[in-house]
């Protein structure tokens, strides 16, 4: 339940910050949320991963539908990847997820070092 709350919070807050700031603001959001609400580190990667990957993919799918994949297919061709629209969407989600996941993992480490002094 806590994981789900963190994912939703990261997704919503990062969507807000990214309208004003570059992509890496999502990494900071994931890091901060994990410090604030993270329980233990076994799930810290997933909060950032899903928290960033899901909105990135949702937005990509929305744009891709409205634009009939005109650009995603060209970009796949440019980087010599298989030309299926799903590849571009998954790749976008994956990169977003990885940088978001990194943020939340490091957030967990910071919490470990400075806030969880009880050694749990």
């Amino acid at each position, binding site marked *: 339940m806590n994981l789900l709350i963190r994912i939703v919070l990261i997704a919503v807050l990062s969507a807000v910050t990214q309208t004003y700031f570059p*992509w*890496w603001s999502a990494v900071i959001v994931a890091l901060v949320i994990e410090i604030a609400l993270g329980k233990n580190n076994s799930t810290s990667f997933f909060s950032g991963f899903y928290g960033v990957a899901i909105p990135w993919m949702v*937005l990509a799918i929305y744009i891709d539908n409205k634009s009939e994949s005109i*650009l995603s297919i060209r970009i796949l061709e440019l980087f010599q990847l298989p030309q299926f629209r799903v590849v571009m969407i998954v790749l976008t989600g994956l990169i977003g997820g990885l940088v978001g996941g*990194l943020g939340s993992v490091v957030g967990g480490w910071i919490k470990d070092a400075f806030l969880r002094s009880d050694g749990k």
Partner: protein
Amino acid sequence: MKVIKAVFGIVLVIVVVFLGNSKLGILPPVAKFLDPYHGFWQNSEFVIQESEDSFQLNGIRANSKVVFDERGVPHIFASNDHDLYFIQGYLTAKDRLWQMEFQTHAAAGRLCEIVGEKALGFDLEQRRIGMLWAAENALELIYKDSASLSALNAYANGVNYFISNLSNENLPLEYKLLDYEPEKWTILKSALLLKYMAKMLNGNERDRPNTEALKLLGPEIFNQLFPDQNYLTNPVVPDFAPDTALGKGLNLENVMTDGNWDMPEIQPHFVGSNNWAVSGSRTESGSAILCNDPHLGLSLPSIWYEIQLNSPNVNCYGVSLPGSPGITIGFNDSIAWGVTNAGRDVKDYYAMDFVDYSEGTYRMGDETLKAEKRIEEIKIRGGKTVIDTVLYSALGPVAYTDKKKRQYLALRWLAHDPSNELLTFHMLNRAKNFNDYEEALSYYQCPGQNFAYADAKNNIAIWQQGKFKVMPKDYGRFIQDGSDASHLEEKFIPQAHNPHMLNPERGFVSSANQPPTDSTYPYYYSGVFEEFRNRTINNFLRKDSSVSIQDMMDLQLSNYNLLAAEALPLMLKLLDTTKFQYPENERRALNELLEWNYNNSPELIAPTVFEIWWDELNNILWDEFNSSDWDADKYYLYSWEQLIKDGKAKVDMRDTRYVYPMSKVTINLLKNEPNHIVFDHGSTNNSVEVAKDVVYDSFYWTAMKFGDIIKYKYNRPHWGFYQGTQVKHLARLDAFSSKKLAVGGSQHAPNATTSTHGPSWRMIVEMNSEGPKAWGVLPGGQSGNPGSKTYTTSLNSWASGKYHELNFLKSSDSIEESWRVQTFKPIKE
């Protein structure tokens, strides 16, 4: 321990953010690029667009309306000229900003700033031939003319307004991909763009290859293979003989032929164009018709930007160059005009006699002069700035140097001179009659063009306008002695003596890059001219005394290959079929040719066989000019590898120091002098070959290659597939280019399409007295964004020979329901 881990984590985040934001090799910054909030996704244009009806534009003075028709062509209705050009700049930037900036960076020799060191050679050359200097010289004159200056300033402000309001997510795709940002637009950039066009259209210099060929062949054979070209029929303006005194000719024995000049490869003569105008006495409707199709390197975004410009002072429709205000080719209510390249040589090279190059001192006449130094700083992305010093002699910048051999070539290019071509177009946009046209042309200098003209009062005209030197015979064809001070005495041909005619008796005017005049013209000129398209066009216009719009379209789209019609019967007559070695292949190739109507239609096989044969014949016949790598035994193998690699069986083993003689020369030799010494192969010492041998040898290779094409190319030897015309993205990215298009054509047919070049705009205008009617098509579309549907809207129409009827609007109210209308409002202070 945990603290170390946390610190390590923070460092890791910083590193990943940095990497995700940085260009890595050829990859764009990965996370920044994929980020759907700001990255490439944001450049995907929605198929159904919502847009605001009104829009504030800081910088315009009054309300303006813009109508976007079904192809996205803007029709600007402004209440004054300032707002008109401001909005033209704004909208052009919106659709084409990256292209505008990339081309002007290229012109200025600044590509290294974008793509890094690999463009250094290109940038250095641009600096040394004085591109920036030429643009600065042009500005000097532009500053003196308020009309063109205010148009340029308003246009630049419009572009800059767009740039300053550009958010990260709206940055054009190529900036995201190459990871850089646009800089401020200046009027210098507009001037650079015109020099970029001048360089493209003046690329037919032959000074070095002529010098080399003269050295190789001697004056007698040289003159036979590279004759003056006014012996050809059907010039642009026949019987044009203004009174003037003739200069003396050069003595070819005295041309300096020592030295191997280190200059870039010669541009093959692919660039060309057609235009013609037919008087109302020879049209079905009774109104004059003007047609124009400029052939250039095909590229995406399209070279041209279609637009209508309307203000109380002007109402004009046509195509503009992104980066330059006004319309370059088009029509208004009263007149229509179109351009083709004059093809005359306006670049002269002089071997300078430097006393001390580092000091910049050189000898000229009895004096020792000092060259001016211009320091060129070439900033290199991810590298150290390169400093280059270019010396400017009295005869122009020293463009090519070989310090070891102490060889220095100065370039005297007429595009270096102060000029304001923009004013010509500014005035043509507003011209009402022939006198306005004549006055507009008086400001036009470089690159020389044939301006065809038609008006609503049924007048037609053509004028080859440009700045051309008065020269003795053979002047400017070779690298000349730069220590001779008499080169500094220059005189120019007055406009009235430039070839022109108004309402000729034959009822039409035309040009297709042929020589401008016949031997009645008293001035000497040289250049690179086409010898076939013009005759096909003139034959058509002479024969049909009541042409329709459909006839004009058919003529622009005609694939009739007059070169083949003249050369092939000669080649077949000389072909000895008893020598056939592999009859299966040879018979098959021959049979294709026998029934051919000389049309390079995409669905035919014969043009493939002919074009291969013509190439092979030239390569074998002109073995005098082939590079030392040329090995008769490996010849076939080499071309076969090329065929596998890129589907093109063309062999080009020629030595780039030389240029093959014009096709007409080759045809004349086949016809009249089959035993000429040039037919003898250089590689065979014991035998003497004649035309028959060259014809058979080349046919043999053709047949073998053709056999392989049938065998390995999935049975698709048809000309359209074999030629495979492609419209390439400006940065040569295949993913943003067109697929290979089966369009057919030949550089010698009116539809002058090759694998890389072709009609960059086809336009037909009928000058009715109640208002012009026009048709046109671009090989691309309005938008420069590969993520937009309008990036290639017209490509299929272009490829299949269809035209759009152009919407020349009388007012912003006469529109169709599906079109968008935007009102631009000034911001009140």
